[in-house]
């Protein structure tokens, strides 16, 4: 049995084979894109993301025997990435004001690439995302950054589509609160 992490694959399940070097190479090959992208989402710089990626796969190898069938491979690797990113971020907490929340709206009939934000705004959004639960981050990441429909997110994380809708709703409510607090603090 094999797993894949492409948009087309229904799930990324741990296999029954030995957790040897071949297994590790396959895990790296199939999850690297997601791990790197998640790391870049949570930290701003490429160097920081590289550190997180390296640490993530080190922990994946060290903890390979703890992966069980209760969670998908992708969810497990993303959880490790999250933990590595949180460790990395503890040392850096810049304060940036966010002042564009009220100006964002549906562009209606106008063609628009979406709201224009500055690097400092992006930092505030990124900071808010890091305060979400691990589960919420995974859903937001796969839904927004990999642009997967909620059914595909559910399959990748081994959850029901209903659960994914609940998680994304609560995640957005939480992010709204965090961004409003950030704006107030600024």
């Amino acid at each position, binding site marked *: 049995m094999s797993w894949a992490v492409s948009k087309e694959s229904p799930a990324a399940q741990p296999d029954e084979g030995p957790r040897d070097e071949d297994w590790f190479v396959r895990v790296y090959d199939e999850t690297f894109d997601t791990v790197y992208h998640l790391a870049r989402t949570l930290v701003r710089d490429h160097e920081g993301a590289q550190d997180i990626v390296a640490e993530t796969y080190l922990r994946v190898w060290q903890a390979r025997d703890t992966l069980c069938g209760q969670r998908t491979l992708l969810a497990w690797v993303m959880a490790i990435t999250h933990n590595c990113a949180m460790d990395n971020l503890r040392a850096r907490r810049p304060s940036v004001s966010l002042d564009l929340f009220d100006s964002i709206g549906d562009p209606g009939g106008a063609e628009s690439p*979406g709201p224009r934000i500055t690097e400092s705004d992006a930092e505030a959004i990124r900071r808010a995302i890091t305060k979400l639960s691990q589960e919420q981050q995974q859903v937001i990441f796969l839904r927004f950054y990999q642009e997967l*429909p909620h059914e595909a997110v559910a399959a990748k994380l081994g959850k029901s589509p209903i659960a994914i809708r609940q998680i994304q*709703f609560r995640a957005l409510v939480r992010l709204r609160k965090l961004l409003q607090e950030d704006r107030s603090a600024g």
Partner: protein
Amino acid sequence: MRAERPSVTSEVELDQCLDQLLATGRWASGLPPGKRGSEIDSLMRVAALILSLTHFITRPRPRQKEFMWASVSHSLHGGTARFARHSKRPGRPCARLRFGSI
């Protein structure tokens, strides 16, 4: 005190608006009327902000994947010996890996 559970209807409507946002960059036509619509619109503004963050994130290039593989295998075993058989030639430690997905 526990937060009030949002209705399943709101969760479904929000999900549909998210699909619209991802597909077209807009969501207004998917909003329900009334107070529920206002709440979902407010959340969709947050969603649009999050989506805009993707413009600041560049995807890794294939060479970065190879470079990182060298770093990972080195940190695991103090060298690439254990994973050397996955190499095809020096400088391309994971040449046998597929890079098409990047």
